[in-house]
């Protein structure tokens, strides 16, 4: 071991090159993980916050309801069951209804989303998306429309809109509601389709005082998709507690796009890791090979003195091991250090159109970075294993040297 360290110190430049070959891929991978983690978390958070939650309780579909969600006549039993499950951060009842919206002679098919404004306020950014007018209150009889729908129906705040409920499981209800606000949707389709109302107003439209289509739930301690196990655990507990007629939809059911994104992301990260690690491994093989070549006579002498092949291999691998461990350690330290520094300064703010776009889709215009201990261990560990495998080749060559030929070797 002592000899291995001295060899490294004797050939500082080559040792540093080998160290960098291990360090740089780990550093890049950790930084990449840092950005991607944060982006995924942002996307997950913006989707699950209010829109889908981490899971939902819904009525079991007993007959085809088209694009409408099955109606639960009374969510009280489901709410009681939910109260028995620990670790639920937040839940709210929602009623989504297909409806016809008419203003004068103009009519559009819309979705009315009945919410409890006071409950969604703490976690939703809906209030921030109001362009004109104001956000809903529970006792409000008014509705919010998207900018696109307002344009199509030529509506302004204060105008009235007639809504005709069209849920296949509900009675036909009709209400006249004033427009209390216009919101900016993060997608034009949503802006054209979605009308927000208080839960009471939506229930009037369904002509059912207790109707709901979903109980939207957020689980305590969930930060991103990496907490899938925790969400699954709560979903399982909830399924066991729920009476017949209700079902639980988890985040994978609710966010198929997110699931698809995760499925693309994993192989993408893997490909990048393979490229980084492959390049690192090539440098490790090269530098160690060079080191073995330069020390051919010395290795020949060691074999001549009676060192076994295994001993010679161990000697070369020990040197590679020390450099690899140092590279892995400093690579991880540097990667984590950068993430900590970026976060200490509050992230990297985006500017211009990119920042505006991020804001529009409900994602923070500041790039954050985050990393888990497992990702650090995985990045450093995988590179260390690759480097040691790469070191195997020069070690094998060293062990196979014929002592006399090696001692006659001239550089």
């Amino acid at each position: 071991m002592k000899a291995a360290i001295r060899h490294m110190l004797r050939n500082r430049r080559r040792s540093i090159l080998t160290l960098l070959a291990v360090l740089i891929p780990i550093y890049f991978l950790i930084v990449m993980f840092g950005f991607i983690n944060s982006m995924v978390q942002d996307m997950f958070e913006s989707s699950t916050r209010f829109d889908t939650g981490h899971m939902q309780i819904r009525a079991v579909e007993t007959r085809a309801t088209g694009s409408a969600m099955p109606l639960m006549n009374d969510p009280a039993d489901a709410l009681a069951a939910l109260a028995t499950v620990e670790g639920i951060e937040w839940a709210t009842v929602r009623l989504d209804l297909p409806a016809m919206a008419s203003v004068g002679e103009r009519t559009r098919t819309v979705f009315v989303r009945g919410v409890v404004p006071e409950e969604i306020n703490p976690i939703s950014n809906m209030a921030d998306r109001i362009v004109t007018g104001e956000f809903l209150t529970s006792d409000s009889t008014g509705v919010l429309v998207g900018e696109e729908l307002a344009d199509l129906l030529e509506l302004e705040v204060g105008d009235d809109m007639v809504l005709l409920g069209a849920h296949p499981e509900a009675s036909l209800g009709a209400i006249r509601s004033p427009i209390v606000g216009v919101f900016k949707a993060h997608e034009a389709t949503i802006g054209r389709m979605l009308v927000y109302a208080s839960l009471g107003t939506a229930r009037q439209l369904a002509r059912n005082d207790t109707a709901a289509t979903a109980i939207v739930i957020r689980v305590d301690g969930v930060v991103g998709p990496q907490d899938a196990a925790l969400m699954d655990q709560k979903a399982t507990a909830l399924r066991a507690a729920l009476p017949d007629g209700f079902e639980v939809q988890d985040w994978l059911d609710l966010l198929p796009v997110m699931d698809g994104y995760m499925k693309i992301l994993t192989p993408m990260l893997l490909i990048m890791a393979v490229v980084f690690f492959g390049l690192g491994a090539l440098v490790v093989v090269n530098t160690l090979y060079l080191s073995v070549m330069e020390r051919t006579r010395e290795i020949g002498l060691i074999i001549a003195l009676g060192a076994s092949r295994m001993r010679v291999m161990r000697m070369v691998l020990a040197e590679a091991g020390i450099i690899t461990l140092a590279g892995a350690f400093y690579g991880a330290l540097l990667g984590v250090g950068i993430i900590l520094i970026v976060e200490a300064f509050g992230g990297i703010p985006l500017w211009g159109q990119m920042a505006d776009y991020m804001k529009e889709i409900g994602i923070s215009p500041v790039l954050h970075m985050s990393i888990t201990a497992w990702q650090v261990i995985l990045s450093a560990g995988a590179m260390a294993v690759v480097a040691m495998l790469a070191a195997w080749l020069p070690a094998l060559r060293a062990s196979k040297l014929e002592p006399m030929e090696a001692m006659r070797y001239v550089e």
Partner: protein
Amino acid sequence: MSNSPLIRTLDLEKTYITETIKTPALRGVSVELHKGEFTAVAGPSGSGKSTLLHLLGGLDRPTAGEIYLEGTAMSGLSKDQLAKLRLTNIGFVFQAYNLIPVLTVLENTAFVLELQGIVRGERIKRAKKILGELGIDQYADQYPHRISGGEQQRVAVARAVVSDPSIVLADEPTANLDTAMSHDLIDLMRRLNSEKGATFFFATHDNRLLDRVNRLVTLVDGRIAKDEVRDAA
């Protein structure tokens, strides 16, 4: 001196084969070396001295014939078995590039003991003792490039004898040394031979050394031309 030979070779042949040329280096060499001998093999360049030494040391394999080291036939041994045999039975002194540059004199001396798996305390003790006996203990913490060629060869001798091998094989050990250094080194090896009973076998054409051996085997064209026992001091 015991009658049972330490090393016995039987019709030893070695031919170096390149793509187009076959060069016979040894042609049927049969020789016995006994414990406590201070023997040299001499002969002109290309006579097969070094080849014989390397074959005896298990550093190379003969084309034909057999070598017995303390009764063990070496031809049947694997590379690792040969390495173990070298480690436990043979000490080597080479003409040049004898020491490991990243190890100190003490560590170089103790290196063979380390390979043998002897615990650190014990190997340091033994290495220091032999360095003291050879008068080079003051260089214990020096690296090889800090000491002279003669001192480096002394360290090589120390390393060769530190594990009490059956025989020390030395290939032109004085070739790179000036006269004074050569005499010093030869005196040292003679002292180890007479006081500790160490067995030495040299491949050399250096008369300064040849004059001091008890037995001289002369090789000519890969054959033993003469094998004479002499009085030497």
